[in-house]
């Protein structure tokens, strides 16, 4: 369960924003979780709850999570396709991608031309889309 570390990054980042923008309170945040990383939402939410507990600016904080589908684009032939964890891939490949999405280049090829030279256009990992705070 390394989801905790990613939740920590989000909270650390939000705390930084709070400080920099001089916010009194951080009411909520809108987070994208890219499908490629297959982050366990329950664990992620639990970690966020624990990490914000008794932290003044996070009083009443609500987390809005949106799943972001993964789009991959081949640099060789231009083909676009999606990736999801339901794919028939060995468990340990999926595990590796869960930790470092970029190693997908080792395990995934363009279904059209076979090239591994593809771009992870979206749906890679954790992204803070927006933040709601009170000054």
């Amino acid at each position, binding site marked *: *369960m*390394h989801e*905790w*570390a*990613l939740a*920590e*990054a*989000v909270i*650390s*980042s*939000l705390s*930084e924003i709070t400080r920099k923008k001089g916010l009194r309170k951080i009411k909520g945040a809108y987070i994208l979780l890219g499908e490629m990383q297959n982050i366990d939402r329950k664990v992620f939410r639990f970690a966020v709850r624990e990490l914000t507990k008794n932290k003044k600016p996070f009083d009443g904080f609500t987390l809005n999570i949106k799943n972001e589908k993964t789009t991959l684009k081949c640099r060789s032939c231009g083909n676009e396709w999606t990736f999801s964890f339901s794919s028939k891939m060995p468990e340990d490949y999926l595990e*590796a991608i869960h*930790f*470092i*999405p*970029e*190693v997908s*280049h*080792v395990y995934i090829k363009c279904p059209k031309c076979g090239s*591994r*030279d593809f771009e*992870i256009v979206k749906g*890679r*990992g*954790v*992204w*803070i889309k927006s933040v709601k705070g009170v000054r």
Partner: protein
Amino acid sequence: MDPRPSLIDKRVKNVRRVIAVAAGKGGVGKSSVASMLALELSKRGYKVGLMDLDFYGPSAHVILGARGIQPSEDKGIVPPEVSGIKFMSIVYYAGDSPCPIRGIDVSNSIIELLTITRWGDLDFLVLDMPPGFGDSTLDVIRLLKKTEFVVVYTPSKVVIETVEKLVKMLKENKVSILGLVENMKTRGSDSAKRELKDFGIPFLGSIWLDKGFENSTGSPEKLLKTHFIKDIRSIIPKLKARKVR
């Protein structure tokens, strides 16, 4: 907004020194020096971490003979130990397969690893840098502000040319440079040393070309008996934190 960079500083909060072994050039012995330095520091009882940042040609696991290990998960990933060294490398995730990724993906991988790796308390975190000064080097400079560089060179024109560029670039970025290490020294040419002196960077010592080194790679016990490690020993006292800017 990418949440990861904001956590990276905290991840190395309890790491006393971050030392990057770099050259700009490939094949001068960055991985050898980084691995041997980590090994000797660990043997002396320091708490040491080693991170291989060369995603195309990871080598530290080959030199230290680190096979069949994997990080464990605990609120992040905890690096396994090799000869007492907490060791991180992309090989845990890419295996022996080629990882043909572009700079943008190298950058993302490094940021991810730095975000999720829990080094804990360390005296030294040694970074084995890739050749070049692209994404990896720029990200280390940008995200690990406390990094101090050890610059390795060998007595060769093409190497000096590139090493000079790295030093210029580090100085300009106000990055700490601990000093220069000459590797694969043979009798004769001291001209390279003379040329590099102009930079006003401390000279930390030489490592002689060691014909027994290749056959010792893969075995920490053997490595600890090489001439190479003796040369590393005489360099260690000179690694006192000193900012050259």
